[in-house]
């Protein structure tokens, strides 16, 4: 009986011994890489909007505070998308005829909401809560990136579960003093004029006040003193100060899924 495979195939076989596992491996790595790619996660993708609202202009240039529009970020799971009324607070006085704002005026007049495209799509089975992150010193920047630099908003982090879990395991890497939570340019270390950053009342839990109105021991200890000037040290202090729970508690499933 003639041989099925001629001798010339031998090198191919040898190659396959090594190559097949590598191919499987590469497929796995490829899929994992794809899963994390900006295409699949939507990172850095500029999302079109019915009104070309620019955070860069309103926040970066005009210096409007996050809370002016995202009113419920400190008390609710939902940061709130501002109602048309919030836009009109200013825009019934300025840029009243701008074409760019025509949909806003139309919405206000007809009492029909502006339908925005969601930029940060967390799956419906994940119950993310903004308020607790803000209260524990996670800055807007940590998840949303340089919003004050964005014309149309894009998503700056993957929002994959591994990304959430990474921080929940090591929250100290992303903690900042609560007075700086809404500051999109904050860095640990010195202030712009070179003087050290110092603890202020807004950095302390309940403003450093006991329920009876006296100062807490933390307030007595910290107020006016310089903050640690590097993230590892500062994070450790803040984790303790803000009663951030341990990793086992923070990665409990029912924190986000129920």
């Amino acid at each position: 009986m003639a041989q099925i495979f001629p001798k010339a195939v031998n090198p191919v076989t040898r190659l396959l011994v090594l190559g097949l596992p590598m191919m499987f491996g590469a497929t796995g790595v490829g899929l994992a890489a794809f899963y994390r790619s900006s295409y699949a996660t939507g990172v850095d993708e500029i999302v079109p909007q019915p009104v070309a609202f620019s955070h860069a202009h309103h926040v970066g240039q005009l210096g409007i505070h996050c809370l002016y529009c995202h009113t419920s970020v400190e008390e609710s799971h939902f940061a709130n998308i501002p109602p048309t009324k919030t836009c009109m607070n200013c825009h019934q006085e300025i840029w009243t005829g701008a074409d760019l704002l025509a949909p806003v005026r139309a919405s206000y007049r007809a009492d029909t909401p502006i339908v925005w495209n969601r930029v940060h799509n967390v799956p419906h089975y994940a119950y993310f809560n903004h308020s607790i992150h803000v209260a524990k010193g996670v800055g807007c920047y940590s998840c949303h990136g340089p919003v004050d630099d964005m014309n149309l908003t894009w998503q700056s982090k993957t929002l994959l579960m591994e990304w959430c879990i990474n921080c929940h395991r090591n929250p100290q890497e992303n903690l900042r003093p609560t007075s700086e939570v809404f500051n999109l340019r904050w860095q640990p270390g010195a202030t712009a004029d070179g003087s050290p950053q110092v603890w202020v009342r807004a950095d302390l839990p309940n403003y450093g006040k006991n329920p009876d109105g006296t100062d807490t021991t933390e307030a007595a200890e910290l107020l006016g003193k310089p903050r640690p000037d590097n993230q590892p040290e500062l994070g450790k202090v803040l984790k303790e100060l803000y009663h951030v729970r341990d990793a086992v508690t923070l990665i409990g499933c029912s924190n986000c899924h129920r």
Partner: protein
Amino acid sequence: MKPDTTDAQAPAAPTLWRGLEEYMDSPAFRAAMRDEFPEDAAEWTDPVTRRNFLTVMGASLALAGAGCSPRPAPMRQIVPYTRQPEQIVPGIPLFFATANVVAGYAVGLLLRSHEGRPVKVEGNPDHPSSLGGTSAIDQASVLDLYDPDRSQQPTRWGEGTGYETVLGAVRGVLYEPNGQPRKAVRLRVLTGAVTSPTLADQVGGLLTAFPEARWCQYEACGQDNAREGARRAFGRELTAVYDFAKADVVLSLDADFLGTGPGHVRYCRDFAGRRKVRQNVPAGSTEFVTPDRMNRLYAVEAMPTVTGSSADHRLALPASQVENFARALAARLGVGGAPVAGTLPPEAQKWLDPLAKDIQGKKGAAVVVAGEDQPPSLHALAHAINAAIGAVGQTVRLVPSVEERPAGKVIDLKTLVGEMNAGAVDALLILGGTNPGYACPADLKFAAAVKKVPFRFHLGLYQDETAALCEWHLNEAHYLEAWGDARGHDGTPALQQPLIAPLYAGRSAAEFLADLTNAPTAREGREVVKAYWKKWYAGAGQSREFEQFWQESVRLGVIADPGRTSAQQAGLAGNWAEGAAAVPSAPSGDNYEINFRADSNVFDGRYANNGWLQELPHAVTKISWDNAAFVGMETAKRLDIDTFFRWTAGERGRAEVRVVELEYKGNKVKAPLWALPGHPEGVVTVHLGYGRERAGRVGNAKDEPNADGKQTRGFNAYVLRTSDAPAFAGGLAVRKTGGEYFLACLQGNWVMTQIDPISGRVIHRDPVRRGTVGEYRANPSFPKIPPTAAGETDAITHNIPGPAGKGEAASGTQYREGSTYGPTHDHSHGDHGHGDEHGGHDSRLLPLTMYHPNNNLYPDARRKARRWGMAIDLSACTGCNACMVACQSENNTPVVGKREVTRGHDMYWLRIDRYYDGPPGAPDGNRTYFQPVPCQQCEKAPCEVVCPVAATVHSADGLNDMVYNRCVGTRYCSNNCPYKVRRFNFFTFQDWYTASFKLGRNPDVTVRSRGVMEKCTYCVQRIRFAEIAAERQHREIADGEVRTACQSACPAGAIEFGDLQDPAGKVGRWKAEPTNYGLLAELNTMPRTTYLANLRNPNPDLK
């Protein structure tokens, strides 16, 4: 005793059983116990039609498509408000006070609203009819709001029309074109029982404007007998309000005061306050009692109810004989002028002396309550007894009649039908709440009579049987869509405020009447109600601004009205016993007695289209989706009829029953027959409210014909009911038909009984530990006595996690410093079945711990972990089912339908097991016990170790988390769960498409789809909500800040929940009680949910 023998000591007979098969230990029952799931549970047994083939294929293709999308999170849209309403913080629910009205009587509620959508009902602690509790019907009322089958537009002969047209038609009949009322119009207004001051005022205005007008209030299951009884007893219309908190001895004469009727939610709270026995009770506590102050309840009743099931002594008597019993008792108590009693059966005779002695020994602290289904003469007799034993003014308070019935203008339905037949009615306005087209005694022939009225108008929530008889129909606003008011059981007015704008532009009765009478100022609902109360307020002589009073009243939902709620002085009328007929003879032979009852779920039929209430198993019978003809065990034998569960073919909840034909006064109906332990002999009980022909998709069974072959849910018992005997009567004939029918009955689902694989014996786990107060006094720890094995240790009953470090490994339980549990634990009893030192239980148990002990994780004492736990007091639980519906509402649990229930697919996360103790035919009635079983949140959870994808794992605070998005549906966890508390979505049970249902879901809980296991997680969404609120303020969660849905719904306050780590916490104190025990704790699961044993207080003289 040895720790690993679970059945070494057979429990002392009698044992607990759920169904007769289990009691008789039938081979079919044993076979069924071998398997966790019914054999073909996952089979699709519907016939394969083209349509459902396409459905399945379509779904598969859609799924395939979804799976291929490379983008894990598809782009979604986000829609803000245009103008954000004041006070709304998106994501934070608001609560509004309102009230649910059943048959005229209000229960004050707080409705939770998410961004303007009412989602969940809670009780209003400020309303005296609620005190924070609710009933199953109150809980389910929110589903009616979103019912897609509600009437959605005004109609004329069923054709859509406009509101103005309808209004114009009614006005055209009643008013001259110049707006003057046509004085001669013989107008009849037909409503349900009305306690609403505003509505009564408006109808009163109509009655004045039209001198010939009359008002008929018809309730199929109302308070007519009680009202007439009070009138006979005291000579005027008064309503009796009971104070069970003061009552040491309670005698219920066929009264289900814990389960139905005005004020039952409140009564349940008061009654339970005298049942929850504790070692140390703070002075003045209304919540707990010491054993010597525990009350005693005697129940004499026909159909077993939750009241009778909770009683210390229950006597099964035909309803007709209850009055006989009461007369004999009155004679013993020396009540003057009481009619003479007839003969009583020996078991009833035996009761009289001990009962009379007990009542007489508690003068002023005893009370006799007569049931609504009993005739006025018995109510009068009960009042006379109460007067004689000094109860009036103590345990009975008489308040002015709660129902609004202007003298001389009110007629009953019989008169109305007579007038209609005589052509003496020109216009009939039927306003919501009553459905005489369906719920009318058969002999009145309402449907035929009403057609003789030239002008007929109907205002109602549904296009129901009555709407079909009327030319004009106007869709009514649901109570959550409208302003209104109504009084509670004691006359306290509650205000109703709308939670949402009417979904279908419906009108409330008050709004319609305001438009109809062309009220000059107030036309809008709020203005109408406000105008009434403004008038009232001016007369009440208060000093504050009305506006301030109004705002406060709306916020509280309650108005203080001492004029209507304070006790009236009333002496017994001399002629109270007049008109008392001789008691009919007891049923015998083939002369059966028929007994009509309002259904505990669908009431008189008005909730027939509510899926939550239809599927809810009836408290005592555990039958869902149907009514049946109930008979006693002997009667079933005499009729040669058996009920059996079809355990084969894998079906557990499927009960195959025989169909009988009931004939009463020439009217016939076919009904499935069910033998019920504790039911009196010679009596057939039928429940009203089923067999609706125009109820809607849920209430009408399109593919599931009833025993008669009609496409309705259950059979219509009104067919047999006559106006002269609305509650019971002799002369019923019962005939076998040879037909068969199947009932969905949950007593066969989720049985915890197991068969020992080696010995083959059925292991009786003794799930409900029970005893008498006497036994408790002798040994408060009696529930901890064997047969429970080694699991009954401190560690298990108190849920202190295993080894606590510091070299203590595997040696025992570590108590926290200053723990409430350690010091209060009493070692003197020596009956614990284990060593007498802490940690002295078998050390072999401890290495089984799967988890790191929590207290090691937090070196810093300030940040100690929370440890959630629950305790359920079985002495207080009446089995009323409010918790089951509350859980369903809070957790978006689907309704599965009758066929699925028969296949063991019901989705109740919290079930209430009903057990019987003692032989089914025992003369004193076998005892009944209820046990709510949610997930026990085992610290050593058997479900977790078997999950291949870690979809169920423990959280740091001790919850047994269920991660739906990770679950792949292997069902191993459920197989391994000894408590059988996990529920699997075999099919897509959830209605994903009906738009209105989407509004009603709780947005904080995932809506599960097919192929996912689900279960109770102690309402983890509420825990996390409170936790985040507390953590934001850097404080501890206060005790009682987190209340689970079942806990807050419970009218008896039988459920306590909280952090076990809190030394002052309530739940810890409950668990420190000696009666605390863990269900199946001998399996070493260390359940976080524990039970306080059921205590009864029997009269030692009554054996």
